[in-house]
């Protein structure tokens, strides 16, 4: 549904219910990039959001109240996201904000939520700052963060018994935070690993030859990285003829194990890559995933589905659970309900820490291997690395 259609549907519902029906709904302001570069993530995320809303409403809503979505495009820009969030609160009177994509956008929405005293559930942003230095009583996060991600990567380095490590990251908040998360993880899990070189590429960089040849020159046996999306595609395509992936194991955050990347790269996906994803359409480790994926496939019209919908889906499910528990849409009561709340999701149970407002969202990690009969890589074995740091 387009935003206009949603509002029309909401208006129709209002008229049908007559006066007083205005109270009988929970207004959710949702913020994803649905145009421009970010649409590759935002559009599938909206599918997951809509699916969760439809499920909740089909089951009779929350305490008899229907969920109604007010969607705005963040355009992947913090300023646009902040303006949209303000408008959702002041003009549409939404009860809660959900979504956000990219660390900068997430922090911008969180700031509006803090000022306006509205609950915001961040479903995708990963910067550690959101639930540490920039934490406030109305912000919650259901995605993972860079310390969990870096710790998992360090565990894999230790497990594979690698000793000389090169790190290459994008030169902005996410890359810097992930590099710090890996450092901390290495101290815990693999203190003897020698970090040989730190390389940085700018966000949107297209040429990686200088970095690739430097890694080769150092003789590293493992590369850690958070190059995501097209950054990884370019890096991998350029590194393959140099034989980089024959020399090193490439351990990557940034969800390059998701099927969006593996499916698109097909047989060009390199060897010796270990990476993460929140969800895999072909992995039903959690029984509830089978029905989730089938429903999503029907909605998307493809057998193979993207990873992003589950994140938005979980955000809505938390809102519904919190509103049910609170029996109200008052921001403070919603926030109180979210603290310590547990729900079951298609990718396992999730609990929000009452102190940090961070959900214990782990990720699936594993090597990306060839499989008989399909022309893309799959993760095998799939291992869930839980979100805990000890």
């Amino acid at each position, binding site marked *: 549904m387009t935003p206009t259609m949603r509002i029309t549907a909401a208006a129709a519902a209002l008229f049908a219910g007559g006066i007083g029906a205005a109270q009988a709904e929970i207004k959710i302001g949702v913020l994803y990039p649905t145009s421009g570069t970010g649409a590759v993530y935002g559009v599938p995320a909206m599918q997951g959001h809509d699916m969760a809303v439809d499920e909740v409403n089909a089951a009779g809503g929350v305490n008899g109240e229907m969920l109604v979505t007010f969607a705005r495009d963040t355009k992947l820009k913090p300023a646009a996201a902040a303006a949209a969030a303000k408008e959702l609160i002041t003009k549409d009177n939404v009860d809660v904000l959900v979504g956000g994509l990219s660390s900068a956008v997430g922090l911008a929405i969180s700031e509006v939520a803090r000022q306006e005293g509205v609950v915001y559930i961040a479903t995708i942003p990963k910067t550690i700052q959101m639930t540490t230095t920039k934490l406030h009583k109305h912000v919650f996060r259901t995605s993972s963060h860079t310390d969990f991600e870096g710790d998992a990567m360090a565990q894999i380095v230790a497990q594979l018994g690698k000793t000389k490590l090169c790190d290459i990251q994008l030169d902005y908040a996410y890359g810097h935070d992930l590099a710090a998360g890996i450092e901390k993880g290495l101290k815990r899990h693999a203190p003897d690993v020698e970090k040989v070189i*730190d390389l940085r590429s700018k966000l949107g960089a297209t040429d990686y030859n*200088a970095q690739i*040849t430097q890694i080769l020159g*150092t003789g590293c046996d493992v590369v850690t990285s958070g190059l995501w*999306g097209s950054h990884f595609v*370019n890096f991998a395509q350029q590194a393959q*003829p140099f034989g980089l992936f024959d020399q090193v194991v490439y351990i990557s955050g940034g969800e390059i194990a998701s099927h969006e990347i593996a499916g698109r*790269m097909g047989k060009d996906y390199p060897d010796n890559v270990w990476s993460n994803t929140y969800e895999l359409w072909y992995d039903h480790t959690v029984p509830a995933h089978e029905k989730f994926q089938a429903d999503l496939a029907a909605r998307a019209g493809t057998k193979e589905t993207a990873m992003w919908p589950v994140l938005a889906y979980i955000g809505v499910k938390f809102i519904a659970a919190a509103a049910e528990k609170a029996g109200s849409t008052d921001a403070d009561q919603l926030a109180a309900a979210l603290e310590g709340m547990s729900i079951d999701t298609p990718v396992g149970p999730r609990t929000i820490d009452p102190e940090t407002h961070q959900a214990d969202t782990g990720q699936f990690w594993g090597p990306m291997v060839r499989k008989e009969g399909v022309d893309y890589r799959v993760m095998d074995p799939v291992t869930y690395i839980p979100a805990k740091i000890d």
Partner: protein
Amino acid sequence: MDMLLSNPTFVLIQVLNSISLGMNLFIIAAGLSLIFGVLRVINFAHGAFYMFGAYIMFTVAQEAELGFVTGVVAAAAGLAAIAVVVERGLFRWLYDKEHLMQLLLTFAIVLLMGDLAKIIWGTDQLSVSYPDALRGATDLGVTFYPTYRLMLAVIGPLIFLGLWLLIERTRWGRLTRAATQDMEMLSALGINVPMIYIVIFVIGSALAGVGGALAAPINSPTPGMDATIIVECFVIVIIGGLGSLWGSFVGALIYGFVFNFGSVIVPNWQDVFAFLLLMAVLLVRPWGLYGKPEREGH
């Protein structure tokens, strides 16, 4: 950094990296510069033309599996066709208008083509395979180097030579050069100047298409790739001199070297050196290394 001092093979590899990057960029920048040299239009949409070249490569070589060379030819032909439409439909009405109007028009084309690309190819990061013959690496004796990159390093100079011969050694090229000097005189002598304009615009745009097609295996077609390339092209043509073929060639090589060695020496500041160089050129020699100072009243 220490690798530069202690390992000659590493230096050789960085030199090859610089040349192959520079030559890929040269193909695109040459088109931009050629169009400006004759039409006096700074075509901001040149980056979008490059992006279309990469996407056409994806459709032809990756999806339809018609082969790599077919992909390059299709990209050139596709951009030539777009160029005819843009030149005849839009540009020709603006040749005698001020530069700002032309700039705004080309910017409108950027936005239009960006959305068009999203409608046709979606927003995924696509991936184009190397052609089988150019996959892998070539043994250079002291080291292996990606075959595809070597091919780029060879194709660039060939295109340079072709353009140089066309402009400097043919009658048509002489007419083109004359058109940059005095278009009215040329018209008075019975030369079909509009025809020269179309052909130049088609050649320049086709170069953007070829550059995009050749870049596709190392630079995944994705929305927004036009913005990155147009900045790089401007740096190159401003350093080299807008409108000069030699300028694009040397400017592209300089950019390749500065970018690569900059990345190795100060990894976190890889872009700074190219832009410092750009500023120095603008201050000391604003018309670029191979350009000519603009005459008054031109």
